[in-house]
Every structure is written in C-alpha cells, then in structure tokens.
C-alpha cells in the first residue's frame, strides 16, 4: 500500500483513520464531517499535534468493504471541501478586486467627480437670458 493511501482501521460498524492537518485543515475536515452526520455517527479526536482522527460509525451493521468505501467517500469529500475552500478564497480576492476597480476606476474621474465638474461648468456658463435674481447685488451700484 502506498504511503499516500488512507490507512484505515475497521471494527464492528466503525472505521477509523487519521488526517494530516497540514494537508487538510480543520475547516475542511469539519466541512466533510458535516456531510456525513446524517449517514452515521462521526467522532473526531486529536491523535497528534497536527493529526485528527476521524471515526465513522454506521447506524446499521456494515461489511468491512462498506466501511472501507465509507472512509474512501470521506477522503473524496475532504478533497472536494479543500477545493471549494480554495475556489472560495480565490473568488473572494476576485470580488475584492472588482469592487476596488469599480470604486476607484483608473481610466477616468469617478461618477462623483464627473457630477461636480458638470455643476462647476454650469455655474461658470453665462446665463443667456440674464434673469436677475434677488440675491445678486445690482450691477450699477
């Protein structure tokens, strides 16, 4: 058996294996465990500084092959959860980038700057109709 294969211990209705936390962090292990709670009983224990032991116990009697298969499915789910986490983190960074680009667009003034510029331009423009307004001082003195 290769060193990379899941090392399992099987006894009646239960399969146990340990996970290296430097490969799959606790969030990933918890994510996978959550999906197995309705399939049986899941128990986590710490068996080393960076090792988590997972024990899966079926609700009904199970053969050794079924228990090995269950452990294999859990291992697949670990990979799935790890990938989801990485994609989530990558998407998070992409979302931040898009938001930053939208708020601080580099190719021109922001919407607020454009509006202020338009207002300034309107104030500077001459009033063709020259309608007097009460708050203006009479020009003649």
């Amino acid at each position, binding site marked *: 058996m290769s060193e990379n294969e899941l090392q399992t211990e099987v006894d009646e209705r239960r399969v146990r294996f340990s996970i290296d936390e430097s490969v799959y962090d606790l969030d990933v292990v918890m994510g996978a465990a*959550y999906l197995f709670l309705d399939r049986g*009983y*899941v128990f986590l*224990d*710490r068996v080393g500084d960076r090792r988590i032991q997972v024990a899966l116990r079926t609700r009904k009697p199970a053969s050794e092959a079924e228990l090995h298969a269950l452990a294999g499915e859990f291992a697949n789910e670990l990979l799935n959860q790890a990938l989801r986490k990485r994609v989530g983190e990558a998407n998070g960074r992409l979302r931040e980038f898009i938001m930053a680009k939208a708020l601080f667009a580099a190719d021109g003034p922001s919407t607020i700057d454009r509006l202020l510029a338009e207002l300034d331009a309107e104030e500077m423009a001459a009033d063709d109709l020259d309608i007097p307004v009460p708050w203006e001082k009479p020009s003649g003195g």
Partner: protein
Amino acid sequence: MAEPIALRFHKSLYDEDAVRRAAERFAALGNYELGASEADWLVSIVPVRESVRARLGDELSNHALFETILGRKGMNT
C-alpha cells in the same frame, strides 16, 4: 444504579458550548454531568432507560459535532 456512559471531546475540536448544548438536548434520556480534563470536555451520562444506552453516546457525540460546526459557521442553534 446504571453505569454512566463516559464521553470525551477534544478541546481543540469541539466547542464547550456545543458540548453543553448537546448534553442538554439529550437530558430527557439521561442524567448528565459535565466536566473537563486538561485536553478534553467530559460528559458523563446515565441513561434513564437501558434501551437507549446503545445509541445515546453516539447520538450525543454527533450532536456535539453538529453544534460545533454550526458555531464555527456562526449559525448557532
């Protein structure tokens, strides 16, 4: 008097509140006591009926994990 079921939950993996909530959830099926060692949260539970003994520890453990995961996701029950 019935023998208690002794359960332990490693502190680095299970939240104390989650273990307490799980024990409370099953209080109708057993008289429980909570405790702690240096590394673990401890639950000792005496089933009120022998018929529930086989499953009580497993169900309570599952619930403690469930509550812990919800707590980590900020979705406490």
